[in-house]
C-alpha cells in the first residue's frame, strides 16, 4: 500500500511517478511486425465481409488486413484512411467489441475475433511514422467552408472538403483542436500525445486553417459565418452536462466526469493531479468508465461506479465493464442517487435501489465519498441553432439542417451513436454533400 493511500480528502501524489507511468501506459500495446503478420493471417478475407458492414465508416477491413499480411502496411493504411481519416484514433478508441470484431466470423467460430482494431492501429502507425500524408488536394474550387468544432466530425469534414479543393476554416472553443479525441478519452487509450500528432498529420493536406478560442455564440456567430462562407458545418459536440437534480449537488467534491477526464489528459505531471480516497462515479456510459478507471489508476482507495439500471443497459460495452472491474472498480447497478450528505464538502452519497423500470424500492444505502463524478450524459448548448429534435440538431440525409447552407454532424446532430467513428463518418459524408451542393 502506498504511503498516501489512506489519507482522506482530494489530494495529489497518492502514487509515485513510476506507478502512475505504468498505470497510464498503453492499454493495448502496439503489435510488432511479427505479431501483426500472425494476427493478419487469421483473417479469412470474407466475401461481403460482416466486419466491413459493421464499421460506421465502411473501411474495407479484409483488404487492409491482406495488405498487412503481404508486407504493405502503408497501402493498408491508405485503404483505412481513405474511408476514415481518423483511422489511427478510431483504432484506439472504437468499441470494436460491439462493431467490427463482434461480427467477425472467427468470433462466431472460436470466440476470438481477428484483432481488427489492433491491426488498424499497426497499419496507421506505420504510415504516420513515415510522416507522409497520402492524400492530395483537387484543383481549388474557390469555395470557402466554415467548420465549427475541431473534433472528429469537424476534422473529418474539413479534411474531405480540403481534398475536394475547398478552403476550410475550422473554429473551436478550446485552446487546441481535437475535440473529444484530445479532451474526452481516457489517457491509456491515447498515449504519447497521439491526438495532437494525428491532427498535425491530418492538416498536412493543406487548405485548412484552425482557429482556436472561438466558441459558437460567443466569439463567432452562425449568422456571420453564413454571410462570410459558402457553407457551414456545425460539429460542436455536446458542451453541457446533465445535472443530478439533487439538493447539495453544489457541495465541494462533486464535479463533471468530462472535466476530470479533460484535466487528466492535459496535465503534464500526474503526481500533481489530486484524487479522492473514496470516489463515486454516477453513470453507465464510456465517460463513467473512463473516469472510474482513471480515478483508480491515480490511486483512489475505493472507486464505485453506480448506475441506475441493470448492467445490460449500460452504454459502456461489456469489455469496458470488465476493464473497470479488472482495475478494481466496484460496479453497482440498479441504484439511483437520492441525496448528497456532507458539511460544505461531500462526505457520503445516498442511493436507493431501483427495479428495471427505475421504480424506487424504498431500500437505500450510503457510500462514503470525498469525490463524486457525474457522468449521466451531455447536452447540446447554444442559442440560435437550427431546429432541434430530441434536444439535438435535426438533420435530414447527410447532415442537412433546417437552415440553408448549414449542415451538422457528430454528437450535436440527431441520430447515430455518439461514437468517434460515427462522427467521422458523418463529417466525411457531409463534406461530400456540401461539395455536391457547392459545385453541383
Amino acid at each position: 500500500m502506498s504511503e498516501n493511500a489512506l489519507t482522506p480528502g482530494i489530494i495529489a501524489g497518492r502514487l509515485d511517478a513510476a506507478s502512475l507511468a505504468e498505470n497510464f501506459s498503453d492499454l493495448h500495446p502496439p503489435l510488432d511486425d511479427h505479431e501483426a503478420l500472425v494476427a493478419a493471417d487469421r483473417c479469412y478475407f470474407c466475401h461481403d465481409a460482416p466486419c466491413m458492414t459493421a464499421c460506421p465508416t465502411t473501411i474495407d477491413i479484409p483488404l487492409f488486413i491482406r495488405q498487412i499480411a503481404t508486407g504493405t502496411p502503408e497501402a493498408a493504411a491508405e485503404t483505412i484512411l481513405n474511408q476514415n481519416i481518423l483511422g489511427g484514433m478510431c483504432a484506439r478508441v472504437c468499441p470494436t467489441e460491439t462493431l467490427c470484431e463482434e461480427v467477425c466470423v472467427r468470433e462466431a467460430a472460436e470466440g476470438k475475433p481477428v484483432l481488427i482494431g489492433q491491426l488498424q492501429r499497426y497499419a496507421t502507425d506505420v504510415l504516420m511514422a513515415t510522416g507522409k500524408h497520402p492524400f492530395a488536394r483537387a484543383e481549388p474550387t474557390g469555395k470557402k467552408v466554415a467548420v465549427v468544432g475541431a473534433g472528429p466530425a469537424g476534422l473529418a469534414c474539413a479534411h474531405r472538403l480540403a481534398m475536394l479543393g475547398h478552403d476550410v476554416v475550422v473554429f473551436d472553443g478550446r485552446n487546441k483542436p481535437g475535440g473529444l479525441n484530445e479532451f474526452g478519452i481516457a489517457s491509456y487509450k491515447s498515449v504519447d500525445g497521439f491526438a495532437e500528432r494525428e491532427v498535425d498529420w491530418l492538416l498536412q493536406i493543406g487548405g485548412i486553417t484552425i482557429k482556436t478560442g472561438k466558441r459558437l455564440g460567443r466569439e463567432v456567430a452562425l449568422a456571420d459565418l453564413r454571410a462570410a462562407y459558402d457553407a457551414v458545418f456545425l460539429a460542436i459536440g455536446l458542451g453541457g452536462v446533465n445535472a443530478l437534480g439533487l439538493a447539495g449537488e453544489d457541495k465541494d467534491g462533486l464535479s463533471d466526469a468530462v472535466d476530470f477526464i479533460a484535466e487528466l489528459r492535459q496535465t503534464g505531471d500526474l503526481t500533481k493531479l489530486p484524487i479522492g480516497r473514496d470516489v463515486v462515479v454516477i453513470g453507465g456510459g464510456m465517460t463513467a468508465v473512463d473516469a472510474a478507471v482513471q480515478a483508480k489508476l491515480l490511486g483512489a482507495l475505493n472507486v464505485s461506479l453506480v448506475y441506475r439500471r441493470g448492467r445490460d443497459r449500460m452504454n459502456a460495452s461489456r469489455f469496458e465493464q470488465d476493464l473497470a472491474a479488472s482495475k478494481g472498480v466496484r460496479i453497482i447497478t440498479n441504484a439511483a442517487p437520492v441525496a448528497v450528505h456532507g458539511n460544505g464538502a461531500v462526505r457520503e452519497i445516498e442511493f436507493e435501489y431501483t427495479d428495471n423500470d427505475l421504480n424506487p424500492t424504498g431500500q437505500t444505502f450510503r457510500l462514503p465519498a470525498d469525490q463524486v463524478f457525474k457522468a449521466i450524459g451531455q447536452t447540446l448548448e447554444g442559442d440560435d441553432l437550427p431546429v432541434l429534435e430530441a434536444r439535438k440538431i435535426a438533420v435530414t440525409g447527410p447532415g442537412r439542417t433546417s437552415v440553408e447552407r448549414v449542415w451538422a454532424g457528430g454528437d450535436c446532430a440527431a441520430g447515430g451513436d455518439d461514437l468517434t467513428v460515427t462522427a467521422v463518418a458523418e463529417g466525411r459524408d457531409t463534406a461530400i454533400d456540401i461539395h455536391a451542393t457547392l459545385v453541383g
Partner: protein
Amino acid sequence: MADLTSNFIGIISPNPFWLASAPPTDKEYNVRRAFEAGWGGVVWKTLGEAGPPVVNVNGPRYGAIWGADRRLLGLNNIELITDRPLEVNLEEMKRVKRDWPDRALIASLMVPVNEDAWKDILHRVEDTGCDGVELNFGCPHGMSERGMGSAVGQVPEYVGQVAHWCKKHSDLPVIVKLTPNITDIRKPAQAAKEGGADAVSLINTINSITSVNLDLFAPEPTIDGQGAHGGYCGPAVKPIALNMVAEIARDPATAGLPISGIGGVTTWRDAAEFMALGAGNVQVCTAAMTYGFKVVQEMISGLSQYMDEKGFTSVDQLVGRAVPNVVNWQDLNLNYIAKAKINQDECIKCGRCFAACEDTSHQAISMSQDRVFEVKDDECVACNLCVNVCPIEGCITMEPMAAGAVDPRTGQVVKEEYANWTTHPNNPGKCAAE
C-alpha cells in the same frame, strides 16, 4: 503399442523412420544424437571420392518459404555432398555402427560414372560395417554440373549401369536414390531394377528457386548478389513425392520393387501415407532440420496408435495398401455423382465458398440477405473447391447420390453400375461395349 520393427530389403531397424542423407547426418556427433532420440536408421551424408573433399559456399545454403506464423513449408538447399575427408567419415561410421548395432546405417555414395571409382568406394565403405549403400543419383545442384547426382539419375542407362557395377563389386544391399527432375520417374526406377538394385528411394530434391530479392534483383538464397538453383524439399514437395512413389509401386515393370519414401515427411501421418502408397519405410530430413531430432518420437507414437486402431500388427500390413486404388483418370467411375452439402450449424458465414464458386467455378452456391449459404444442386458438379476453401473442417461435405435418384443438374437417373471414359459415348476412341 504396435511393433514398428521394419525389415527393409533385409535391413532390420526398430522403426521405419530413417534420417535421409543430408546435412543432419554429416557427422558422428549428429548421428549419435539422432539414434539417442529414437531414429530407426540413418543414411549418412553422401560420401565422394577419396582425395580432397568438395567445398561448400560460405554464404547462405538454405532458402525457405513460410506459411502463417513462419511455419516452414518448403526448404531449398545448395549444400553439396560431405565436405569432410572420406577417411574421417568412414572412421566415424564404423564407430557409430559398432555402438548402435540395432539401428540401420546406410552409406550414401556419389562418385563419377566409371566402374573403378564405384568399385573403390564400395570396398572402402564395406569396412564400416554399414548395412547397405544408397547411390545418390538425385542431387540437382552443383554435383550435377560435374556429371554426378541428378545428371546420372536423368539417364536411365547410367542408373542401370552403376547399379549393376555396385551389385557386381559388393554384397551390400543397394538402394538407388532417384531424382524427381525427370519427365517419367518410372524409367530410372525400371533401369535400377534391371541393373539389379535391391530398392529405390525417392524423391531427392526438386530443382528450385525459392524467391527473388526484389531490392537486389537476385534469387534467394543470395550469395554476393547472385543465386543458383537448389534442391527443394519439405512439406511443400510431399504431393509430388507421393505421386512418384505411387507411379513406381503400380507400374507392372517395377511392382514389388522395395521403395524408401522421401519427400516432406513431417508427421506420422505423412509417413503412413507414403507407406500406404508402397513405401517400405520413409526417410526424413526437413522435419528434423526444422524441429530437431525429437520429432521422431511423435512419428513413432502416432504410427503406433494408428496401427493399433487399424489392428495392424506389422508395418508390412500397411505397406502398399492404397496402391490398388491408384488408377488413371480414364478408370474413374463417371456414374458416381456427388453434391456439396453445407452444414448450417457448422457454417460461420464467411462466404468463401460463395466467392470461390460464384467467381471461379459453377455458380452453384446461393447467398441470402442474412448470409445463409446453400448449394444449388442443379448447378453443383461436386468439384470440391468449396470444401477446400472452407475454413471449417467438416462444414462442407461431398454427399454421393444414391442410385435411382435423379441428378437435378442433368436430369439423368443416377446409375448403379460403374462406367468410365473408355466406354463413354463422347469418347472418339471408346472400346466397343461387349
